[in-house]
């Protein structure tokens, strides 16, 4: 692809995409090479890339495009289509407030407001110190425990806005 010729030419603006070395890139490359076929496996590869890098910045998308032999536009189109893929890094403790119907009728939106107010960030944003990020998700299937908030791997159930301060203090 284009990047190889650019690597040779000093001063080209593309080399930052070309610097695809390091163990993380190698891990994804090995994963791709182990597939029977590249055809139809873009979503599978992006899952692997996101779990390896934590998120999918443009450099990683370009890398996946090169390795899969696809245009970057197609990779970006898929990444931006699915809510599971994120182009921004998450906080050290990613907060997910469940906004499924059951959580909603049990007051999840008020819990979310309290979270945003407490951390002074919006949905999809990260705190300045990189500690927390807030996202909403569509049902974790734990409707009997609504409203649910997940922080990292920990699940908080029957959360009320008044508990938010206390919950965050645990991290």
């Amino acid at each position: 692809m284009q990047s190889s010729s650019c690597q040779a030419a000093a001063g080209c603006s593309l080399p930052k995409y070309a610097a695809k070395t390091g163990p993380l890139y190698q891990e994804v490359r090995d994963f791709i090479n182990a597939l029977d076929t590249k055809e139809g496996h873009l979503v599978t590869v992006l899952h692997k890339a996101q779990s390896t890098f934590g998120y999918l910045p443009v450099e990683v998308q370009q890398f996946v495009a090169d390795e899969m032999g696809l245009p970057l536009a197609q990779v970006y189109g898929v990444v931006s289509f699915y809510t599971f893929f994120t182009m921004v890094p998450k906080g050290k403790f990613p907060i997910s407030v469940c906004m499924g119907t059951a959580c909603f009728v049990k007051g999840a939106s008020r819990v979310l407001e309290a979270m945003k107010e407490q951390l002074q960030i919006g949905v999809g944003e990260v705190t300045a110190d990189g500690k927390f990020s807030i996202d909403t998700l569509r049902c974790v299937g734990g409707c009997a425990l609504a409203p649910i908030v997940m922080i990292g791997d920990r699940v908080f159930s029957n959360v009320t806005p008044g508990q938010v301060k206390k919950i965050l203090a645990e991290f």
Partner: protein
Amino acid sequence: MQSIRTDQGDQTSRVMPDATHKQLRIATRNCGFIDPESIDDYIGVRGYQALATALQAPPAETVAIVKESGLRGRGGGGFPTGLKWEIASKNKADQKYMVCNADEGDPGAFMDRAVLEGDPHSIVEAMAIGGYAIGASKGAVYIRAEYPLAIKRLKKAMDDAKAYGLLGENILGSGFDFDIEIKYGAGAFVCGEETALIRSMEGQRGEPKTKPPFPAQSGYWAKPTIVNNVETYANIPAIILNGADWFSSIGTEKSKGTKVFALAGKIRNTGLIEVPMGITLGEVINEIGAGCPGDKKFKAVQTGGPSGGALTSKDLDVAIDYDNLIAKGSMMGSGGMVVMDEDDCMVSIAKFFLDFTMDETCGKCTPCRIGSKRLYEILAKITSGDGSMEDIDKLKGLASVIKDTALCGLGQTMPNPILSTLENYWDEYVAHVQDKKCPAGVCSALLTYSIDPKKCTGCGLCAIVCPVSCIAGAKKEAHSIDASRCIKCGSCYEKCKFDAVLKS
């Protein structure tokens, strides 16, 4: 009845014990009763016998049994499963595919997860039966990446089945080959639509296509493909073993068998239930669910998730089946059943669902892409107190147009929450636009919180729970709320033991 095991994953996905004897378990027959990670346990409850039986007869016989049973798709649409199989079985192709839709995207529903976590072998067996029936040697499960335990158990089930010769090449010496691959979803509600799901499996954006051609003619990699939901598959082995007559003796005239529902929201007994078709809504809500907690009055139940409508207290005697629910402006959907009580604002609920569909529309067709946004904007205007009667008319008109013009099921059903709430809760809409009041006390723009100084004892509990610290006052003296900073979360209202916090 045996006791329910609680060690299958976490307790939230287990099926509710049948205290009222109103339930009938077919799809969830093994959930909680066998070790989902043990193939021997499954074989011990007649597992893989249905596959062995099917393999001894010509494929057309299996198709005929499923057709006669009257089984309809449990993912929401309710298309007759046997008919779908028949179409695919008659199409000649060098390769066909049997796909399982396990991308449970309906918020408030977790039936598929329960079956995959509690009885994964039943899905493996059913897919192999379906593969034999239509002549497919390959299968794929399209599953949510958010269900790690279900994925783990399904993988183990597939590995064990292979080791026992029940999956892979020459199954049980019959000469029939069948293998399954797992494909991960990445969070897109529209992928529940089968053509969108197939595109997603091919690694593309999950946008639906116009039908025909139907997937049974040209689907995954342009080959005949059957897409069935997890719950649909879970019924198959039981139908093969017990016969079409047995299955069709359960349920109503046009809806046979049982349906699994996820009861959630403002209801005492939350969890999964499986009931025969034809049971009334009232039996489900008041008997199995034991009504709303805290002696609150039942107001509505949303079936069919964001594609369904609200059913009210006057619908409690409706016998649940595909056609009756559609006649009532809702739909069966995949089985979410969210109960609401008198404290829920129906305009706000409609806005919640439109917020969801606006977010989940794939953007391919204009009515859905732009229509959902416009509907949401009008609802937001109404709930913030800026709406007029004209807006309600506009809402109704636009909703009807979208219903008729959108490309796929997502767009066509998106207006249902609005149309059904307009029909049943017209007064609430009018109260929002004319009196600028939210009768249920939910829409925060139309609410203010204050403290009654006569009742306040100055205990300070409200100030402690306030997440934005906008309540102040000296100890043992009346407190007050700084309305300019109040986010109207209602924490103080809920916590106050002396009813001193007023909501108006």
